[in-house]
């Protein structure tokens, strides 16, 4: 079937893509700049078409625990929020990771800390890729950079979530959530009617009861569970790295940026090339797993690297680990909801890396 062309906001694209991906449930709570996801779903009213459940919860805490309950039934469920709301969800995310449940969590990031601002930021990198809640765990983190990817990554997220029984986060930001672009939407998928064998769907006589828990009071058992989780994350690191490169083949200087910043940096590369500076861009699409290997390879070919992120410098720590001292690495980014401009990136690369 042919894809349908629409002009949509990133948030709307997530919502429509969720319906079309055959999602079973969405549980959310309003917070700017992502409320359009819940609003769109309520208006689309998929309970009447695909049978998808859409519910406005009493809090982000309740919403993520609804996701836990739905995911434990083997259903394709999701939630979305923005930074302060994601902080509230961290408890539930830790339980979901601990109980190894598949789900999608969309974070349309705004500036922090605290109540912060409603404008776009990328300052939730640490809490997304390093854990966020308690315990040793990882989410798979996808960073869309366009409205098209906001739509496409919904299906991909569910696929990865079920493949690894692991929560997947789409780490977006206010800019991508609020902006409109062309988007080609996939045709409607059927909702899956077959339950995974581990799901709590009512115990038939043919199997033992299914228990969904993250608890093991026996430390040896808990250590083994942790080792199993780490082994899973290692497989994810080896198999699921996704990235995009832009003019890196002859690059002397490398920009590393994801999401909105990657779009800004792509323009910066064009501006730099127009000035005769051979710049290139590596855009991590997965932030966990991080494209460590490829960045390390490129570090052997370039003279310096600028990590651009709308934060005080979070992703740059992973870039530094990947580069491991081979070439100078600096961070640049605006804070508190201000989107970095291409011109600022150009100036910063020149002053911090080329002359530095």
């Amino acid at each position: 079937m042919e894809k349908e062309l629409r002009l949509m906001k990133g948030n709307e694209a997530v919502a429509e893509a969720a319906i079309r991906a055959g999602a079973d449930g969405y549980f959310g709570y309003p917070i700017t700049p992502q409320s359009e996801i819940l609003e769109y779903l309520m208006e689309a009213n998929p309970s009447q078409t695909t049978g998808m459940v859409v519910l406005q919860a009493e809090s982000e805490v309740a919403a993520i625990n609804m996701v836990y309950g739905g995911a434990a039934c083997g259903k394709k469920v999701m939630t979305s929020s923005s930074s302060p709301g994601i902080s509230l969800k961290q408890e539930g995310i830790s339980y979901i990771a601990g109980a190894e449940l598949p789900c999608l969590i969309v974070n349309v990031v705004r500036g922090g800390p605290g109540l912060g601002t409603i404008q776009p930021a990328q300052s939730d990198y640490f809490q997304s890729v390093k854990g966020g809640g308690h315990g040793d765990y990882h989410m798979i983190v996808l960073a869309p950079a366009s409205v098209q990817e906001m739509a496409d990554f919904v299906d991909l997220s569910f696929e990865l979530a079920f493949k690894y029984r692991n929560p997947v986060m789409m780490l977006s930001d206010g800019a991508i959530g609020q902006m409109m672009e062309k988007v080609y939407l996939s045709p409607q998928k059927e909702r899956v009617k077959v339950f995974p064998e581990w799901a709590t769907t009512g115990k038939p006589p043919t199997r033992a009861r299914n228990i969904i828990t993250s608890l093991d009071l026996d430390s040896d058992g808990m250590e083994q569970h942790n080792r199993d989780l780490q082994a899973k994350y290692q497989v994810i690191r080896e198999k699921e790295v996704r990235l995009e490169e832009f003019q890196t083949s002859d690059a002397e200087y490398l920009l590393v940026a994801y999401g909105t910043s990657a779009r800004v940096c792509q323009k910066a590369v064009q501006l730099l090339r127009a000035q005769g500076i051979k710049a290139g861009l590596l855009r991590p699409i997965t932030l966990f797993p991080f494209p460590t290997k490829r960045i390390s390879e490129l570090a052997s070919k370039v003279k310096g690297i600028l990590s651009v992120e709308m934060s005080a410098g979070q992703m740059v720590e992973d870039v530094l680990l990947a580069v491991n001292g081979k070439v100078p690495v600096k961070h640049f980014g605006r804070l508190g909801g201000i989107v970095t401009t291409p011109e600022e990136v150009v100036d910063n690369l020149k002053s911090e890396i080329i002359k530095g």
Partner: protein
Amino acid sequence: MTEEIIIAGFGGQGVLSMGKIMAYSAVMQDMEVSWMPSYGPEMRGGTANVTVILSTDRISSPIVKHFDTAIILNQQSLDKFESSVKPGGVLIYDGNGITRHPERKDISIYRVDATEEAARMNSPKTFNMIVLGGFIKVKPIIKIENVLKGLKKSLPERYHNLIPMNEKALIRGEEIIKEVHKAK
């Protein structure tokens, strides 16, 4: 071809929807588009602006500092964005309520008194379409027929009776826009 546009004015003037119509029309012409609003409480009564990029190529940054065209609908926005127009670029403004007119000599300046015209036409809601008509006259990137096609696609059926009025407003905008200053 890439055209980077800022539209800025009061919340409630239809700034965001004008940008949306512009973007939709370009989609009808098979172009790439991005529409990046300022959002949040400031939209409710305060200033509102939206960056629209129309391009024949894949669009990189949806956020830019300098614009090919600035469409300015109040004094506050004029003060904020006059300096953001690229040298040789275009500034279109509605003279209504403007006390300090644009002063730059290195850009082309056009005036479209859409507020006044909409009042005269007795349809204040078509204000932004008059402005858009003015833009199309100066920068014929999108065609009026595609604007109407876009409207038809994006508006719910029950509003389709308003399309002829919008067409009239677009044409009126083309007629009334005046050149104030031409960049050298």
